[in-house]
């Protein structure tokens, strides 16, 4: 494995920082990318896709709202509507940008967020995966799946 497998404690700290909520992430290896609807694509310095972070709609809405303190009701409404607002989408991009550091250590190559896509995913070949159930306090529960070369 070239990149680091995200650590539960580090993920909790990172989610707590970006959401402002007490985060509880628990590993749950049962998630697949087909369970998710957003894919953050991370590329190496040569532009090759090397890692992805997937999330479901409730997670996207929760993280997208929590970053700029949009009330939880806003996130709930987005889930009911089946899509997130443009502000939440911009915030989700910023959150994924911050989460990119979970894949890296002092000994791994550098990677960076390229884009966050909705629904249509580019598959990542030969990936190692780890997935988590997350509890974001008043923003509710969600799912995150990490894949890396």
């Amino acid at each position, binding site marked *: 494995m070239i990149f680091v497998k995200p650590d539960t404690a580090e993920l909790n700290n990172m989610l707590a*920082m*970006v959401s402002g909520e007490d985060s509880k992430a628990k590993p749950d290896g049962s998630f697949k990318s087909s369970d998710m609807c957003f894919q953050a694509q991370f590329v190496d310095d040569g532009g090759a896709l090397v890692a992805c972070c997937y999330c479901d709609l409730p997670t996207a809405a929760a993280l997208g709202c929590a970053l*700029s303190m949009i009330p939880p009701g806003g996130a709930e409404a987005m889930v009911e509507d089946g899509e997130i607002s443009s502000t939440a989408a911009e915030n989700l991009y910023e959150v994924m940008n*911050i989460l990119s*550091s979970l894949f890296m250590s002092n000994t791994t190559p550098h990677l960076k967020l390229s884009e966050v896509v909705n629904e249509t995913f580019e598959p990542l070949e030969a990936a190692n995966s780890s997935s988590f159930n997350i509890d974001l306090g008043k923003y509710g529960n969600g799912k995150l799946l990490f894949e890396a070369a």
Partner: protein
Amino acid sequence: MKVMIVDDSKSMRLIVKRTLKQAGYDSMEFSEAEDGSQALATIDDIGPHLVLCDWNMPVMNGIEFLKALREAGNAVKFGFVTTESTNEMRSLAKEAGAQFLVAKPFTPESFQKALRPVIGA
């Protein structure tokens, strides 16, 4: 109290502001800059009482900004908020005139602990 937040990440500037509010610093007034160069160009007009600065930024990084500030005779209270926090970086920051370094990911308590001796609150 006027606080200048210097970070090339818009989201990180937002998170720092939100975390400071969660830490109880409700009366802080914030200004922002995207890198050391922009901060250096505006700091005299803004006149912050405290600067919270990322380390790695394009154009002018945090330590270059701090050194430029001190060379210009500006003694504003200064702290780094940065992902990397090696002992070498901490001593480099202290030598250049920084009062503290807060490591990312941070919590409201991290800021309270770092700021209490510096701003007395």
